[in-house]
């Protein structure tokens, strides 16, 4: 039976004070002015966000919608996963905990061109979509971002300062986190499960306790972390205890998930990717 639903906005949506188009402005940038075959380069989708509004991280938290970028590459080009800068915690009504960005954020990827390129010019396309919120929320998208890059026998750098700044805001992988090694004695993580549920515990033993230690859990369709985990520093140890849920039939949750740990040092905010390993 076909049901004709007359869908109407009349009387339901109040006129938005802000023009949705002004809330997020998207641009697409590369850190090279020309592409050298075989030499990786970076691209970034920069989102400039109106004051008081925010967009979300790859795990939006208790609400929100992850900001997503899709790349469309020329033949033979390969891109890394989209890289998200360390987010901030956004707390609403005291109880709703979300993760995201205000002011501006650049989501990046590393693109590796093939070693032989026939054309003299390549086009990289991107689309981004997001939910931008303050007290209300407005979905938005930039569906047709485009970069046209000449092929050259060297990769000429472009916008180096911008990409340097934003690359520093990406969480470092744990094996290359030399900054973190300067600050920690050890990290011990384990997960446990009993009839009441599962939890993941991480203990960080610091050489010098930094300020503002924060942890951001990963999002996945199978492993669901609650956002009211405890994070407590006593003496020189920070303990994070995070409850999570997994599908009932899955006794071997082997998902390889990446969480983000961040903390404040004299030289700035440090972000580190901490794997959450839940294998038996």
């Amino acid at each position: 039976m076909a049901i004709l639903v007359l869908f109407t906005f009349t009387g339901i949506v109040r006129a938005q004070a802000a023009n949705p188009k002004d809330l997020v402005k998207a641009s697409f940038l590369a850190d090279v002015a020309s592409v050298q075959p075989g030499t990786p380069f970076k691209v970034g989708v920069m989102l400039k966000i109106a004051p008081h509004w925010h967009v979300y991280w790859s795990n939006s938290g208790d609400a929100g919608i992850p900001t997503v970028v899709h790349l469309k590459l020329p033949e033979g080009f390969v891109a890394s996963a989209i890289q998200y800068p360390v987010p901030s915690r956004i707390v609403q009504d005291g109880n709703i905990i979300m993760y995201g960005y205000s002011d501006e954020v650049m989501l990046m990827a590393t693109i590796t061109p093939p070693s032989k390129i026939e054309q003299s010019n390549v086009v990289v396309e991107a689309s981004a979509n997001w939910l931008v919120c303050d007290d209300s929320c407005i979905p938005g998208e930039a569906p047709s971002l485009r970069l046209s890059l000449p092929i050259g026998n060297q990769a000429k750098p472009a916008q180096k300062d911008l990409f340097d700044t934003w690359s520093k805001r990406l969480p470092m992988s744990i094996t290359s986190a030399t900054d973190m090694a300067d600050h920690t004695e050890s990290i011990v993580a384990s997960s446990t499960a009993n009839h009441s549920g599962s939890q993941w515990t991480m203990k960080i033993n610091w050489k010098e306790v930094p300020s503002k230690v924060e942890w951001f859990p990963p999002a996945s369709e199978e492993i669901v972390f609650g956002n009211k985990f405890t994070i407590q520093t006593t003496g020189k140890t920070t303990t994070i205890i995070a409850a999570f849920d997994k599908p009932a039939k899955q006794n071997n949750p082997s998902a390889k998930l990446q969480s983000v740990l961040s903390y404040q040092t004299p030289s700035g905010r440090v972000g580190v990717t901490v794997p959450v390993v839940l294998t038996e």
Partner: protein
Amino acid sequence: MFKRVLLSFAALAVGAALIAATPSAPVIGAPAPQFSLQDQDGKLVKLSDFAGKIVVLEWFNEECPIVQRHYKADTMNKLYDKYKTKGVAWLAINSTQGKTNQDNKKAGAAWHIERPILNDASGATGHAYASTNTPGMYIVDAKGNLVYWGGIDDNPNGDKSTVKNYVSQTLDELLAGQTVSQSKTQPYGCSVKYAD
């Protein structure tokens, strides 16, 4: 260099320490919090009115564009039409501050919602359920226990070609007498706009 990174999994078969849920959050497998709220016609509706039935609770806010996206796609109405014939009850709950029965009645009429939309403008029931997002879904089994809490599906950005609807997955399992396979899933949508 890194001194030591130790990642290990220890499964405790015999549960010694109970992992305590946050006091204000409902617990999967435990009785769902009771409530008594007015519907869009001012009639009092209680969870206990549906004792013995499976109940879907849908946190609702007609101003949320994600709720709008789902009503435009007829997600909730289609699901309700399918499962009401199997005895499943479905209540929408609006915990948005300042909303009145009239607002709910207007939204219900515009979107052909043939089920109660409960007025929780005070936020008391939302807080009892630790509800954070709209659309936010909970399912209570026929024994009155909370068995599902999370998003309506696995498609927050609305861009997946194959979508897993968690509500129909859970209802199918309950109706077949099976264990609920995914009791908690990633929530998404607008945050609930609670009264201060």
